[in-house]
């Protein structure tokens, strides 16, 4: 009897693994680099900087996912938009001494307007997204260089403490030492609360679905999933708590990720995004305003580019003329590694997150191992191709069995 249940649980776990192939590959990559760097990858200090380094890629990848969902359209302009918004934000902060919150709002509006500009041509005039955003890539980069005169604008933390602290600070620490380990109790409380909330939500949703007579994962699979998620969260936050504590950035990221996850999976416009990408004609014939959906996706991309711009200014303590170069490619790669379809219609926010983490760990791990930056590019290219190939092959196998 028990043996039978164990067997069932194992097949359930196996199915879960099959559905989350990229997550497993990510875990393998983390293990590989942990060994390769002699454990430095999972050093508390490094985890913190990994999050900081990856944060803007994650933000951009989420926006990029919305564009890719609408039919495999990508946005090439995000790096340039990021650079332009960076310069404007830095000028407003440093030269106009404007209120920090006002600067943030203005930056987001500018990002949104640029996105809407792209969206207008793409959705209503039907110029291919590739061309519009390629034009945008040159246009906004050029404008940025004109405005900044190709010079970096420093935004130092001593002169702009509030701005830097919003994106770069940590939740106040209360350090405790137990069993010879010093850690931040605030960080741990936050993470325990978050873990509990996730487990409760998952359990409740399973219960209501079961009571309504829907098929739900078995009890064992459910418990396994809860334990795994809790363990991962608690482990990483514990590492954070040993260092500088809970980065405020993580809260911004969590809000964006949860928000967009909810948007794509639970709301009507989110559903339409998938519908437009899967079969635009059918969506149109179902009464969906497909132009509005396309327009929205690109406007949103502009806003998120602006968010990433603010993160970058704070992180590098300056607006660089070369900021954001190549970021569009990182964001696009993240989405595809995370399982988004190049033809649109499939892909998840979680997938984009996994893809971005993958790229982040790869960058960070290879730098740690002292691999030459030029060679890193070679590896990244191969990994992108391999990751997508792996995904396609495993999907094919799933279909035939």
């Amino acid at each position, binding site marked *: 009897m028990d043996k039978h249940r164990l067997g069932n649980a194992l097949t359930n776990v196996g199915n879960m693994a099959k559905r989350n192939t990229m997550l497993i590959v990510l875990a393998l990559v983390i293990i590989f680099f942990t060994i390769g760097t002699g454990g430095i990858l999972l050093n508390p200090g490094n985890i913190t900087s990994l999050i900081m380094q990856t944060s803007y890629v994650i933000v951009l990848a989420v926006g990029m996912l919305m564009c890719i969902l609408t039919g495999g359209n990508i946005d090439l302009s995000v790096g340039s938009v990021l650079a332009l918004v960076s310069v404007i934000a830095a000028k407003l902060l440093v030269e106009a001494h404007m209120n920090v919150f006002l600067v943030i709002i203005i930056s987001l509006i500018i990002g949104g307007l640029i996105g809407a500009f792209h969206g207008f041509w793409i959705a209503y005039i039907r110029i291919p997204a590739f061309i519009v955003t390629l034009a945008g890539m040159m246009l906004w980069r050029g404008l940025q260089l004109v405005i900044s005169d190709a010079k970096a604008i420093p935004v130092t933390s001593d002169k702009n403490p509030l701005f830097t602290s919003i994106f770069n600070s940590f939740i106040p620490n209360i350090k405790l030492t137990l069993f010879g380990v010093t850690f931040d109790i605030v960080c741990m409380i936050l993470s325990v609360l978050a873990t509990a909330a996730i487990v409760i939500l998952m359990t409740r949703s399973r219960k*209501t*679905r079961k009571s*309504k007579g*829907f*098929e739900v994962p078995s009890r064992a699979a459910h418990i396994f999933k809860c334990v795994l998620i809790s363990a991962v969260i608690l482990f990483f936050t514990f590492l954070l708590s040993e260092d500088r504590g809970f980065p405020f950035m993580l809260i911004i990221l969590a809000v964006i990720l949860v928000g967009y996850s909810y948007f794509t999976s*639970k*709301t*009507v*416009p989110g*559903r339409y995004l*998938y*519908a437009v990408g*899967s*079969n635009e*004609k*059918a*969506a*149109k*014939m*179902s*009464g*969906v*305003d497909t132009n509005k959906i396309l327009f929205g996706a690109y406007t949103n991309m502009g806003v998120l580019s602006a968010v990433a711009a603010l993160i970058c200014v704070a992180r590098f303590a300056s607006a660089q003329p070369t900021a954001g170069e190549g970021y569009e490619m990182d964001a696009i790669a993240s989405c595809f590694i995370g399982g988004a379809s190049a033809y649109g*219609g*499939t892909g998840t926010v979680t997938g984009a997150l996994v893809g971005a983490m993958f790229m982040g760990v790869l960058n960070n791990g290879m730098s740690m191992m002292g691999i030459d930056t030029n060679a890193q590019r070679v590896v990244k290219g191969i990994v992108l191709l391999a990751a997508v190939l792996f995904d396609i092959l495993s999907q094919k196998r799933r279909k035939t069995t």
Partner: protein
Amino acid sequence: MDKFLLEMKNIIKEFSGVRALDNVSLSVKEGEIHALCGENGAGKSTLMNVLSGVIPHGEYEGEILFDGNPVSFKNIRDSEKQGIVIIHQELAMIPYFSIAENMFLGNERGTKFNIDWDKTNKDAADKLKVVGLNESPYTLVKDIGVGKQQLCEIAKALSKEVRLLILDEPTASLNENDSRNLLDLLLSLKKQGVTSIIISHKINELSYVADVVTVIRDGCTIETIRKDSPDFNEDRIIKDMVGRELKNRYPLYEARTPGEPVLELIDWTVHHPLYRERKVVDNASITVRRGEVVGIAGLIGAGRTELAMSAFGKSYGAGITGTIKISGAVKKLNTVSEAIDSGLAYVTEDRKGNGLILSESIAVNTTMAKMSKVSHRGVIDKDKELEVAETYRKLLRTKANSVSEPVVSLSGGNQQKVLLSKWMFADPDILILDEPTRGIDVGAKYEIYLSINELIKDGKSVLIISSDMSELLGVADRIYVMNAGRIVGELPRKEATQEKIMAMIIKSDSEKSSTT
């Protein structure tokens, strides 16, 4: 000359459990024109796909002998190498290529790295002469009509040294004149020794051109009749085609008394979206009453779909003029969502193209046209969505493991039921069904007819467009006949017959040609 060029023996082909071909045999003698008849979905096209290698060797059972030798084609190239060329119903020409470029596409003149354009155009001109098409080889294919494109396809086949020419419904979209030209061309090719198989529904054409007729029904060979046999007559062929079960192919008709008009189109004119000067729908006026099933009969290209789609929130066409009234009130329906809100639903003929999202689940497809019914302030209630999808799955007896299954894995008939569920869920007053039973099996057809009756009982109205005239005669209370964009006749159920419908179409064609 009496040797068989082609023998297909005991061909069996299944599509996900459904037997499309059940022991079909077909023997074609060298130098004859062999007609293959059968209703939609009888298995004719599947059989030809097996022959031409579209369905590769190994995916079907049975044996094919060509010129006495067993053959196993893996793709179309293999079969073309042997001289078997198939011309599909949907022409496969590239609109922005010239006639000559199209003709030698995949079979270029000259060498691989140096196409000899002079030779290409000269050879093309020669072949065009053979098929009697008076066009320059430099003309772009988009600039010539469907009839001429059909002739180009045949010229293309001739350029490949064809031994067996297969034409799938070659005259379906041609007018009387072009059809006659095409059939005469087949007869002259026969004199030159080309063997052909012609798939067609049009019995009068077959008796004009064919030496032998093989009838297929429900995936089985019914019989093969030679022209010299006394059985070679239209009645016999029709009987073979429709079989015995014709009587109960439609649910019992109960007399209905329709109510007030719910949908009126008055002087509706639609222009082609690309060729603005061309009228696709020409001053058409129709009325649909509450609780009434109205049919629109006509040939392919008559403008029926265009009429329906232009009325459905202007989802087709340009320069649309005319009045649309819903329940007596004049409406301006400029978008699909306005049309849906006014109680219209258009169930497309193109379920894969603009009907369903194949990769998504049954549930997602079911609710797509009316998300407001399963969402609150833009947030979807997924549980409710699954529940309603399940309700409609049961109601229409859609065969699927669960409503979370992607639509792509369902059979055509079941996909059609999902499409119907989607629009029934949208809760319209008037459903426009465009070819609702095309390409689905007899059983599923019957269930769709039952659903139509249910809708009528609920006080809805149905406008049904179908190329299957017997279907319209079986389900409609009243039938409009449409031809070349115009409504050319209207028949109440009692008076409607296939002959009368055809006569109206032919009469309008001759009127048109006499006035121009």
